[in-house]
């Protein structure tokens, strides 16, 4: 055990975690030159297409130093704030963390929040100044920032580059030297933390664990603390580029188990794995349940597919412990789920994974945060869904969640950041100069204003030089109304949104225009109206379709045109028929696409 090191790589988004992991995999010979690509560990299609890490990824490496053979368990983590739950679970499985800071960017908001997560777990932190190959690197300045933040010595910081491999040997030496070997007793009763899981259509549930105490062997009789069900450990192993079977795995190590679990609900990330006979006396502290930031409905386009969707969501949840959902029903969309997400990117990724990994065609409805409504008879209701919003005649007051936002930016952008935050109903609470041209600003703002397009706009007004983190600070009374959308006179509940009253006219107009753009012309005219209570605040019309034909269809056009029509026919099947109006999936998110 004294030759095992468990560590994760944490940083702000895009600071080069996965790229530096490539170099570690390469130097330790864990991945063959042939299998090595950029960000090798980002193995999901969505990760590769978007160039970001979404899932933590554990991998075991061998490394020889000074004649001693070491086993290094690395977990690469995502940097985007929506996936910070992945980071916190990775941290719980390790003793140390490499904290990367991009030498051209300096410390950013998630550098700080991820550092705090690691410190809560008493991690040994190895500070790494990354991307040193770039001419725009500012090593001295960023080292100043790191020394100040971490209270470390300047010479503890390792300069590295994931592009050139600079500093990788020094880094490996530091991992072995500074991070303690795991503690734990291999002969004690088995006590292992389940930190992740995934559903495999052939093998059932595969669970990833970190053993704190004891030894797990193949064919052992095991149970999970939380469910108390017993299983046989059919296959256990360690996580290499491909899973590698083992006969036994002991305290301090990280591995996987396949035990014939077929149902997603039989297992819970954060649970403790132990032996059925001679169990450990207590469970490991699991993970705090995540608190979703945004809620939205997810519905199957084909109403009949509800059970299939439930199954897909259960399986997806195995691999995404931050996803929460409960059944809901909508007059327009039938049965579906009200889901909780950690942010908009998370919501997008869930929808995309349902479509790609589970072949579901789904509609995601307008997201909203969670409100409290007090009725005239003094009931306090949780409103996670516009349809739960009490009728105005019964409504006494509404409270909406506020957050404290920390924004770190260059002093040049203070003015534009200020304007943006004020537009988003924010109030400046504090402003400190970290260095002569880096400012940290704190605002109190409604959560609802920042979950939508805030981050993108912040990035664009600051030319990328602003980073941002936030924490909930409770609820404040607010002037909210429910805006309904009517298509040909019929209200479509799935299109309703809760908005601030001052924005009602303006937003109503924009939403109608956007829907007009998104809803294709049909054989008849479609009236789109936005209403608040009985009052119509905006109206647009989609004119009836008069022309839907291509002029020419000669020799060379036949194949192309047939394929185009077939593709359009498939696309039509993905539309939701409400009454006799066909609505494309993205129209349900129209509110988010207003510019």
């Amino acid at each position: 055990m004294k030759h095992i090191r468990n560590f994760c790589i944490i940083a702000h988004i895009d600071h080069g975690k996965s790229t530096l992991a490539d170099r570690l995999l390469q130097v330790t010979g864990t991945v063959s030159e042939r299998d090595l690509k950029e960000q090798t560990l980002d193995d999901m299609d969505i990760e590769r297409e978007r160039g970001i890490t979404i899932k933590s990824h554990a991998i075991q490496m061998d490394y020889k130093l000074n004649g001693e053979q070491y086993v290094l368990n690395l977990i690469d983590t995502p940097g985007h704030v929506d996936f910070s739950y992945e980071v916190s679970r990775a941290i719980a499985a390790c003793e140390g963390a490499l904290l990367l800071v991009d030498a051209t960017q300096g410390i950013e908001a998630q550098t700080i929040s991820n550092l705090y997560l690691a410190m809560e777990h008493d991690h040994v932190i190895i500070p790494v100044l990354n991307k040193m190959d770039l001419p725009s690197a500012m090593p001295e300045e960023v080292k100043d920032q790191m020394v100040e933040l971490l209270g470390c010595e300047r010479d503890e910081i390792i300069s590295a580059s994931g592009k050139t491999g600079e500093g990788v040997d020094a880094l490996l030496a530091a991992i072995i030297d500074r991070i303690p070997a795991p503690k734990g007793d291999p002969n004690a009763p088995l006590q292992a933390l389940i930190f992740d899981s995934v559903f495999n259509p052939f093998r059932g549930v595969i669970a990833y664990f970190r053993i704190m105490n004891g030894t797990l062997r193949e064919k052992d009789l095991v149970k999970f603390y939380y469910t108390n069900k017993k299983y046989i450990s059919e296959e256990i192993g360690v996580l290499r580029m491909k899973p590698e079977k083992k006969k036994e795995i002991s305290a301090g190590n990280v591995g996987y188990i396949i035990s014939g679990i077929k149902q997603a609900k039989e297992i819970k990330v954060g649970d403790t794995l132990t032996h059925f006979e001679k169990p450990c006396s207590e469970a490991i502290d699991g993970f705090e349940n995540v608190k979703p930031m945004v809620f939205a409905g997810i519905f199957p386009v084909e109403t009949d597919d509800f059970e299939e969707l439930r199954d897909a969501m259960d399986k997806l949840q195995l691999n995404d412990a931050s996803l929460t959902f409960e059944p809901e029903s909508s007059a327009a969309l039938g049965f579906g789920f009200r889901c909780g997400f950690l942010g908009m990117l998370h919501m997008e990724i869930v929808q995309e994974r349902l479509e790609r990994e589970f072949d579901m065609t789904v509609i995601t409805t307008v997201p909203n945060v969670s409100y409290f409504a007090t009725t005239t008879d003094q009931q306090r209701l949780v409103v996670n869904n516009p349809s739960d919003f009490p009728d105005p005649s019964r409504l006494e007051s509404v409270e909406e969640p506020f957050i404290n936002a920390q924004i770190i930016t260059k002093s040049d952008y203070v003015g534009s950041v200020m304007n943006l935050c004020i537009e988003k109903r924010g109030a400046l609470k504090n402003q400190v100069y970290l260095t002569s041209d880096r400012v940290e600003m704190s605002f109190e703002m409604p959560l609802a204003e920042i979950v939508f397009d805030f981050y993108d706009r912040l990035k664009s007004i600051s030319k990328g030089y602003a980073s941002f983190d936030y924490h909930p600070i409770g609820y404040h009374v607010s002037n909210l109304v429910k805006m309904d959308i009517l298509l040909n006179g019929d209200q479509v509940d799935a299109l309703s949104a809760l908005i601030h009253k001052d924005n009602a006219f303006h937003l109503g107009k924009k939403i109608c225009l956007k829907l007009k753009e998104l809803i294709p012309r049909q054989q008849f005219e479609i009236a789109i109206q936005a209403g608040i209570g009985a009052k119509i605040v905006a109206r647009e019309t989609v004119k009836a379709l008069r022309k839907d034909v291509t002029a020419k269809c000669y020799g060379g056009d036949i194949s192309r045109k047939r394929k185009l029509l077939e593709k359009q026919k498939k696309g039509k099947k993905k539309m939701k028929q409400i009454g006799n109006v066909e609505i494309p999936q993205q129209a349900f998110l129209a509110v988010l696409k207003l510019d």
Partner: protein
Amino acid sequence: MAGIYIHIPFCKQACTYCDFHFSTNQKLRKPVIDALCLEIEMRQSEINEAPSTLYFGGGSPSILDSQQLNQIFRSLSNAFDLSALEEVTLESNPDDHTEEKLNLWKSLGINRLSIGIQSFIDRDLSLMNRAHNAKDAELCVQKAREAGFEKVTIDLIYGIPNQSEEEWKSNIQRAIDLNPEHISAYCLTVEEKTALYHQMEKGEISEKDDEVIEQEYLTLQCMLSESGYVHYEISNFGKPEHLATHNANYWKGLAYIGFGPSAHSFDGANKRSWNISNNAQYIKAVNSGGQFLDEEILRPEDRSNEQIMTGLRRSTGFDLDQFPKEHALMVQQNINAMDDQLKACIWQNESHVGIHPEKWLLADAVIREIMIDS
């Protein structure tokens, strides 16, 4: 019964709406034609019956000089038995209607001219950057007649921005007055990557409303049928004895072989192929014995959907008896499931299904409904 298509990928200047494969750089004309003739030689065994139609399209085949056209005809007659040719069409631009060229075409056995008139109004022609003017448009048919052409078809475009309803009517009337055997009328379509598309994106030109275009189409149908033209395909009208043969064969699913960059071929059964649509690469591939075409094998579903698509664009409709049984069943189910408004667009007569001509502007919407799932 087979047809031959020759693609001449060169034009004098680029019309703003055009997304065909062509080049305005004439440098590669000779090597393209050399390669095209070589292609004819290499692929001659692909048809083993005497072709009945020959069609020169483009691009602008009327741009070719005597030597180049002669060279192509020589290659064709070396490779194929041309004695059964009935319809030999050449697409011509009005500005190419010189006495010399017309006589040349006639002497080579071309017996049908397809003239790209598009409009008789100078403003329209320059808006679309056509190479000819209104005067060329007026005179070209006359000149063709003088050179002895008995079969003439002209192209018109409707939906032209800034053109008034009256102007459109007068364009149709002038076409009728020229008394061609056949008229094709196409709606101006804004294709991506064309100059017109960019002009519209920038807001320099605005597209006509569908309602206006629909009206123009109905006017066209009405005026041409009053003048004795049969509306036999969405965009095609002909005097009863003069419906286009070569083009109709595409829709009937007969075999054709296409030579030249971007030309397509169909073996009449289940194989479609198409040549590289880049002049330089085409020349290189043909000359080096490399691969210059791609092909696809159609599944029975694909063929049925092709028949639905081309059939619904024609007055004859498609014939369910020509379909595999299970496909015919699916088609009928799809028809039954259509909503009333779309259903009103179609007619069904025994095994034949078609779209009423006045509803042809909704053809794609109907086709999508009726096509079988692929």
